[in-house]
């Protein structure tokens, strides 16, 4: 078997022959290979943050017009290693009155919830940990373990800030999970499969980024919110609640929360690449799996770069704004995107598909879906700007002209029929 055509199969056969030569055969050999595979994927996932943290710090430095870490080693590449060693030799302090077992369990769970997502990521069409037939729901479910980990960490620390951070986290993560699940449903609909590999393969001709841009936007935004990074970093909010859920953690336990967060950010990039940017697909990727791995890593890093870019650009969002953005904008928009996708896809399949030649069908379908999504996005923007203007005018009129009311009690019904404001305010609001 050629290494370049099936690298994983090649290594697998080689290892199997090796195991047979030392007397391990049959199911035991298969099991040994599974264990080895998990160790390789897990080890890759856990050493990646060493590089990621360095890359992110340098990039954030560039964004903020400074250099970033550049002292330890050439260009500072050993900075993260030095940090890891420092964390390793720190004293491990358990706060007074903490729930010991849960306190120690939480950082492990936080890493496990992110690391296990790597089991289903298809790096190339025949290079992956495992191809679970319910992969798209799998990473949602292990992601919810991360929410639980932060909740437990905050609760077990016996600290008011930690508990406050944990509560904010749950409000945030739990709410943003709804539009995320809805957005995942769209690629599942288009690929008619929940297997991550099949979803990647279904984007061979048209990326779902183009046939479902609204869902891609919602998925990206909500999964960044799930990582709890800026601009959605209310759970740690250094300037408000000191450090949130991880305030009492020190040494390597804090380090594990840190590693989990950075790995999660990159995993968001990898998941976005898989679900919406075609994963490993690309020219000649179905012949040379190594090329597919290259495409996958490139796409994942591009998505990851946008995550860093967002972190460097936007200020922290306020909690009431964040929750209203979720329930009053993202959830209706995600539902709209599902309905539009279902309608356009079904109508196309029923009435239009037969009119086109085989090779053009995927592009016609993608184009129609793109048009539907653009119409939806335009409608959503019109409604959102009108509602926002209405709310702004109302707030200003409340502040400066408290006598004018008659609009109290029923907000969010955006109409243009209230002419109480002075002209200057209206002009400023436009």
């Amino acid at each position, binding site marked *: 078997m050629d290494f370049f055509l099936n690298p994983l199969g090649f290594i697998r056969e080689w290892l199997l022959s090796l195991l047979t030569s030392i007397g391990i055969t049959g199911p035991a050999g298969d099991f040994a290979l*599974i*264990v080895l*595979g*998990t160790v390789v*994927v*897990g*080890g890759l996932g*856990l050493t990646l943050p060493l590089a990621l943290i360095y890359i992110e710090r340098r990039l954030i430095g560039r964004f903020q017009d400074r250099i970033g870490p550049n002292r330890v080693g050439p260009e500072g590449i050993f900075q993260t290693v030095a940090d890891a060693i420092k964390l*390793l*030799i*720190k*004293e*491990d*302090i358990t*706060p*007074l*009155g903490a729930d010991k077992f849960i306190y*120690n369990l939480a950082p*492990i769970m936080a890493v*496990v919830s992110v*690391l*296990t997502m790597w*089991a289903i990521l298809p790096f190339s069409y025949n290079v992956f940990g*495992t191809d*679970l*037939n319910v992969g798209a*729901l799998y990473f949602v479910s292990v992601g919810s373990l991360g929410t639980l980990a932060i909740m437990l960490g905050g609760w077990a620390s016996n*600290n*008011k800030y930690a*508990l406050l951070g944990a*509560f904010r986290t*749950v*409000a945030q993560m*739990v*709410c943003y*999970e*709804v539009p995320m*699940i809805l957005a995942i*449903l769209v690629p*599942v*609909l288009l690929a*008619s499969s929940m297997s991550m590999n099949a979803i990647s393969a279904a984007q061979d001709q048209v990326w779902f980024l183009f046939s479902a841009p609204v869902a891609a936007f919602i998925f990206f935004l909500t999964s960044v919110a799930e990582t709890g990074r800026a601009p959605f970093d209310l759970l740690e909010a250094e300037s408000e609640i*000191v450090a949130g859920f991880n305030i*009492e953690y020190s040494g390597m*336990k804090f380090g594990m929360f840190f*590693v*989990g967060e950075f790995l999660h950010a990159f995993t968001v990039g990898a998941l976005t690449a898989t679900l919406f940017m075609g994963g490993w697909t690309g020219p000649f990727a179905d012949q040379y799996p190594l090329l597919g791995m290259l495409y996958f890593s490139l796409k994942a890093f591009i998505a990851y770069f946008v995550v860093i870019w967002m972190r460097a650009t936007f200020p922290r969002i306020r909690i*009431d704004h964040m*929750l*209203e953005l979720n*329930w*009053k904008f993202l*959830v209706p928009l995600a*539902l709209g995107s599902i309905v539009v996708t*279902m*309608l356009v*896809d*079904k*109508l196309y399949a029923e009435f239009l598909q037969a009119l086109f030649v085989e090779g053009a069908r995927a592009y016609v379908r993608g184009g129609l879906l793109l048009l539907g999504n653009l119409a939806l996005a335009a409608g959503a923007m019109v409604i959102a700007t009108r509602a926002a203007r209405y709310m702004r005018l109302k707030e200003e009129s409340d502040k400066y002209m408290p006598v004018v009311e008659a609009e109290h009690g029923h907000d*969010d019904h955006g109409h243009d029929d209230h002419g109480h404001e002075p002209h200057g305010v209206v002009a400023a609001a436009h």
Partner: protein
Amino acid sequence: MVDNNWIFIGVFLLIAGLFPAAPIIMGSMIFGPKKGNAVKSSTYECGVETVGDTWVQFKMQYYIFTLVFVVFDVGMVFLFPFAIAYQQVSLFAALAVMGFLFIIVGGLAYVWQKGALRWV
């Protein structure tokens, strides 16, 4: 007969637990100093002695948001098998499932209109 993919997932969950546990145990048992005292392990709240109980009662709002979340979560789970079979179902079935979505959205609209989605 258990799916091989799930065996991988099961083993992965166990191994993934060992990976972060190892550095934590190394740090706290081998490398880190062990000179704890009562002041060091007291609760960190900006240098002030902590006042009252940590576990205070929280806002109702958190509970309400979680309630809405649970309802949505349960509803969305039904859509995944449907989405997989979507290419095989009729236009009528698609419209009917949209009706299912519409009913849940009706619930959301009621909650919204009641003002329960506002953070107060």
